């Protein structure tokens, strides 16, 4: 069974204080690892897809990296508008279909 564990559950940062969120996974035959951002009362918003160990993707203050067992979402010099829940999902091929499995998310609050 595919497993996705995100840590920490919650993170409070001061504006400008860089940090990282972790997503560890066990999956048979990874076909993609995804990061999403979710604001309160809204649906998740797609951020990144990573496919293989060593791959990195960047967007503004966010950088996602991938190893064979985990992914990190690095947040550099965060701003209050980066406050959100960040979700990680892994996708494997299950019976011919691609089904993503989500972690429980990390709730990030950035204080001004």
């Amino acid at each position, binding site marked *: 069974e595919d497993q996705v564990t995100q840590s920490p559950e919650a993170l409070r940062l001061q504006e400008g204080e860089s940090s990282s969120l972790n997503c560890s996974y066990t999956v048979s035959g990874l*076909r993609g690892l*995804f990061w999403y951002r979710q604001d309160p009362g*809204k*649906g*998740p918003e*797609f951020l990144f897809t990573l496919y293989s160990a060593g791959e990195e993707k960047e967007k503004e203050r966010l950088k996602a990296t991938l190893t064979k067992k985990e992914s990190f979402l690095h947040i550099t010099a965060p701003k209050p508008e980066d406050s959100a829940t960040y979700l990680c*999902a892994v996708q494997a091929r299950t019976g011919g279909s*691609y089904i993503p499995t*989500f972690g429980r998310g990390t709730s990030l609050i950035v204080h001004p």
Partner: protein
Amino acid sequence: NAGVTQTPKFRILKIGQSMTLQCTQDMNHNYMYWYRQDPGMGLKLIYYSVGAGITDKGEVPNGYNVSRSTTEDFPLRLELAAPSQTSVYFCASSTTAGAFFGQGTRLTVV
């Protein structure tokens, strides 16, 4: 660019009532999903579809039904609503490169 559209946004049901949550996407994606999200529990897959006419159960299908008659539409049917179905429901469509979500339906069963 509408993306994934869900209706309604909010609904209160009485125990035993039925309803259909509507989901439409305009990106011509074959894959569509229904998730429920409870506080602190992440997204749980209810049903998914890999194309028109093809649906399959996810992790938590009991009490729900789906159909996929067209590529665009993927409605979720709740029969005999129970308090345990109080949740926020999200519909999504995807390619293998990532999913796009609707804004959600907040359902309360009383």
